[in-house]
C-alpha cells in the first residue's frame, strides 16, 4: 500500500476563492431547471395520458420506484423523459418514513442509540456515535481514551463495510453482477467482526453515551489484522474488475457531473463534495474523537463525476485501513466507558454483591439519566457526508427534541442536477453514485 500516500490532498484555503460573496448561490445552479416540481396528484394525472401532448410536447413522465431494483430500497424518482433522455426529475422520498425523531422523544438518552442506529443501516455505528457525542456534549462529560479509540476503530471498520456495500450496489446497478457478490463477500467478514464485538451484525447499539457497550473481546487484534490482510488483495481485484475496465470507465466517467459551486450551493457533503475537488472532511477540519492523532489523507476527485465518487470511496477504504492500523498500534488500556456513576450502569460483578448497585442499575435502565437543559449540534463524517445531530434537552431523561441531519437526505438534492440531460442508464449510475440510504433519508 505504498501508493496510498500519493492520494492528492487539496488545501482547504482555495475553497474560499471559489465562492463569490456577492450573489446568492442559486445562480450557481446552471441547470436548476432540471428539478421537476410537480405534485404527485398532478403527476398521476399526466402519467395516465401518455405521451404528454400539448404543453410539454414530446416528453413523457415515468415513474421509477419506489420498488425498483436500482433505487436502493424505496427511493422513487419521477422522471420527465424525452425519448430515453432525462429532462427533469424529482426524487420522491418518505416511503420509509419511520418517525424516528418523534420516537426519540419517548426514549431515554440510554435508549436513544437503539433508535438512531436504524437510520443509516449501512453505517449504524456512526448514528450511534453522533447521538452519543451530542448527549455527552450536553452533559459535558469526558469519555475515557480507550472508549474513544474503540469508537474510532469500529467506525472506520464500519466505513469500510459501508463503502464495500457501495461497491456491491454500484457494480450491480451497472450490470456487473459479480461485483455485487464480491462486495457482500468482503462485507460479510467485517460484519463477522462486528458480531463478535457487539453481538449483532447490524443495528448494534454499541456506542452509547458515556462510552461503548462492551470492551473489545479477546483476540480482537488478530481478527482485525486478519481483516486488514484480507482486504488489500480484494481491493486490487476490484481494480482489475472495475477500475481498469473500459466499459466501467465509459459508464461512469463524465456521468453525473457536478461542479464545485453546485455541490456547495446544494449543501452536498461527503464523497459528492469531495469529488468536485473540495477537500472537506470533518475528521480533518473539525476533528472529533482522536482523529487529530492519526494520520490519513482526504481523497478528492477533480471532475465531480460518478467515476470520481466511485474512486473516492474505493480509496477511502484504503485510508480507513490506514486509520485502523494506527488504532491497533495506539489502542490505550483502560476503561471502556466513563466512570460517571450517573450515566454509567455499575459493572455486572457489582450487581451481584451490592443491593445499591442493583437499584442503581435498575434506575438507569428504567428512568434513565438526566441531561442538563440546553441545545447542541454535533456532526461527524459518516461514509455519506456530514451526519449531524441537533439535540435539545429540557433537563429530563428524554431528549426534548432530537433531529438528525442525514447526509443522504441532503445529498439527494444534487440528483436532479446530476442526471439532467443524460440517459436513463446514466440516471441509474447517478443514483448509485450518490449512494443514498433511504433509512437515513426518510428517518
Amino acid at each position, binding site marked *: 500500500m505504498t501508493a496510498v500516500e500519493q492520494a492528492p490532498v487539496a488545501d482547504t484555503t482555495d475553497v474560499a476563492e471559489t465562492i463569490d460573496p456577492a450573489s446568492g448561490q442559486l445562480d450557481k445552479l446552471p441547470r436548476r431547471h432540471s428539478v421537476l416540481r410537480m405534485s404527485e396528484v398532478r403527476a398521476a394525472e399526466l402519467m395516465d395520458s401518455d405521451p404528454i401532448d400539448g404543453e410539454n410536447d414530446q416528453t413523457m413522465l415515468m415513474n421509477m420506484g419506489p420498488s425498483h431494483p436500482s433505487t436502493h430500497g424505496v427511493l422513487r424518482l419521477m422522471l420527465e423523459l424525452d425519448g430515453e433522455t432525462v429532462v427533469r426529475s424529482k426524487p420522491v422520498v418518505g416511503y420509509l418514513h419511520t418517525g424516528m425523531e418523534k420516537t426519540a422523544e419517548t426514549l431515554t438518552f440510554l435508549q436513544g442509540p437503539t433508535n438512531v442506529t436504524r437510520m443509516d443501516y449501512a453505517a449504524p455505528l456512526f448514528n450511534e456515535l453522533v447521538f452519543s457525542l451530542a448527549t455527552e456534549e450536553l452533559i459535558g462529560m469526558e469519555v475515557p481514551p480507550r472508549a474513544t479509540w474503540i469508537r474510532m476503530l469500529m467506525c472506520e471498520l464500519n466505513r469500510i463495510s459501508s463503502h464495500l456495500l457501495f461497491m456491491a450496489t454500484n457494480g450491480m446497478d451497472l450490470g456487473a453482477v459479480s461485483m455485487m457478490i*464480491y462486495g457482500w463477500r468482503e462485507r460479510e467478514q467485517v460484519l463477522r467482526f462486528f458480531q463478535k464485538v457487539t453481538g449483532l451484525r447490524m443495528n448494534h447499539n454499541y456506542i452509547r453515551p458515556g462510552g461503548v457497550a462492551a470492551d473489545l473481546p479477546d483476540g480482537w487484534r488478530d481478527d482485525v489484522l486478519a481483516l486488514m490482510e484480507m482486504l488489500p488483495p480484494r481491493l486490487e481485484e476490484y481494480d482489475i474488475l472495475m477500475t481498469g475496465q473500459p*466499459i466501467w470507465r465509459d459508464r461512469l466517467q463524465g456521468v453525473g457531473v457536478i461542479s464545485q459551486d453546485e455541490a456547495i450551493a446544494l449543501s452536498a457533503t461527503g464523497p459528492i463534495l469531495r469529488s468536485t475537488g473540495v477537500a472537506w472532511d470533518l475528521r480533518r477540519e473539525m476533528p472529533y474523537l482522536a482523529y487529530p492523532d492519526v494520520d490519513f489523507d482526504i481523497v478528492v*476527485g*477533480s471532475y465531480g463525476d460518478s467515476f470520481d465518487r466511485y474512486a473516492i470511496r474505493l480509496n477511502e477504504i484504503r485510508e480507513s485501513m490506514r486509520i485502523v492500523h494506527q488504532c491497533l498500534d495506539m489502542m490505550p488500556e483502560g476503561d471502556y466507558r466513563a466512570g460517571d456513576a450517573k450515566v454509567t450502569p455499575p459493572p455486572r460483578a457489582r450487581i451481584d454483591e451490592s443491593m445499591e448497585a442493583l437499584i442503581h442499575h435498575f434506575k438507569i435502565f428504567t428512568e434513565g439519566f438526566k441531561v442538563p437543559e440546553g441545545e447542541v449540534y454535533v456532526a461527524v463524517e459518516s461514509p455519506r457526508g456530514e451526519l449531524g445531530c441537533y439535540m435539545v434537552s429540557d433537563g429530563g431523561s428524554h431528549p426534548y427534541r432530537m433531529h438528525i441531519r442525514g447526509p443522504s437526505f441532503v445529498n439527494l438534492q444534487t440528483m436532479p442536477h446530476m442526471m439532467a440531460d443524460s440517459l436513463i442508464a446514466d440516471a441509474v449510475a447517478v443514483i448509485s453514485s450518490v449512494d443514498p440510504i433511504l433509512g437515513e433519508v426518510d428517518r
Partner: protein
Amino acid sequence: MGEPYLRDGVDFGDVLLAVGKAVIAFAVLLVAVMLMVWFERKVVSRLQNRIGPNVAGPFGLFQTLADGIKLFFKEDIIPDRADRFVFQLAPYLALVPAFLTFTVVPIAGDFSDGQNGAVTIFGRETFLQVADAPVGILFFLAMSSLAVYGIMLAGWSSGSKYPLLGSIRASAQAISYEAALGLSLAAVLLVTGTLSTNEMVQVQAGEGFGGIVPRWNLIVTGFVPFVVFLIAGTAELNRPPFDLVEAEQELVGGFHTEYSSIRFALFFLAEFMNTVTLSAIIVTLFLGGPAGPNFGFLPGWLWGFVWFFAKLLVFLFTFVWFRATLPRLRYDQLMDLGWKVLIPVSLGWLLVLSAVRLVRNGQIDITGDSFLDAALVVLVSIGVLVLGAVLLSLAIRSARRERLALAGERDPLSSGSLVAAAEGGRD
C-alpha cells in the same frame, strides 16, 4: 449439394425421416437449453464463490425443470392496457426463429478424410442436420433478423412504459448489429465460397496448416471476423454486456416486464435457445462444426457430435463468462460500438480479405512479377482502409465537437487524463 436423400424424388420415407430429424433436433435443443440454464447458474455461482442450485435434483440439475413446471402452472394474465392479440403472439414469435435457426446446423457426422458427414439411416443417406438448405447461412441471417420481432412486439403490446423503452432499444440494437453480423459473415462466405452449412464444415475439415493447425475459418479469415461476429452475436442475443433490452436496473424487466407464467417461460426459453443456437452457428462458421479427428472406438458420426459438443461448450462458457464479468453498456455506447467500430472494421477486413483472394485466384494479371502485383493490390486496399478510417475518425471527432458545443458543456474527459484520485491508490 443439398440433402442427399432429396436428390431422387421424395417418398413417404423421406418425409418421415425429415419429420423425425426435426423432432429429434427439437428435443436435443430443449434438453440443451435445460442444461444450459443450469450450466449458466452453476458457472456464474462458481465464478462468484457461491455454490449455485443444489436442492432440485442431484447437483441442482432439475432446477430448470422446476422453474419450468412452476411457471407453467402459474397464473397467467394479460394486462388491461395490452394489445391482446399481439401480446399473446409475441412469445411464439421469439421462440420460433430460435428453433428454426438450429435446423441448418450440422450437429454430428464424420467429416474426417474428406467425407461429407453423411450417414445412412434406413437405407437413406442423410446429413445429421434437419435440413441442408442451399443457402443455409442466409437462412440464419433471415431468422436472426426475425427474432427481434418477438421482443419488439412484446414490449410494445404490454402497454406500459418500461417495456416500450425496452422494445425501442431492441429494435435499434437489432438493426445496428445485424449489419456487422452480416458483414463478418460475408468474410466467411468469401473464403469458403459456399452458402451451405454442410459444405462449410467440409471445407474446414480439410488438411490443416502444417497438418496440425486446423483449417478453421477462425484462422483462415484472420480472427477479426470471428471477434466481430462474437460481439455482434452477443448483442443480437441481448446477453450481457448488451442486455439493455431487459436491463433490470434500468427498465425493471424490459420487454418482458408484464409477462408472467408460461409466456414468460417462452421468452426465457427463447433467450437460452438463441444462445445455444448462436454458439452452434459460431462453431459451424468458424470452428469447423463437427469436423475433427476420428480416433476410432466410436462410430464415426458420434465423433462429430463429440467435437461439436466440445466446441459448443467453449462458447456457452464464454457467454456465461461475459455475463459474470462485464458491466452493461449504455445505449449510446452500444450504438457507437456497432456503428463506429464493428461495421467499419468488418467492412475493412472484408476488403483486405477480398484483395488477398483476388490475388491468389489469379484474377489479376500476375503473370509478370506476381509478388509486386500482389503487394500492390493489398497495399491499395490497405490504403483505402486507412483513408476510410481517417475520414471516419475525423467525422466522429467533428460530430462530437459540434455536439459538445450545442450542449454548451465542458467535456469532462477532454484532458484525456484520468482522475487523479482514482489512480491515487495504485501505480
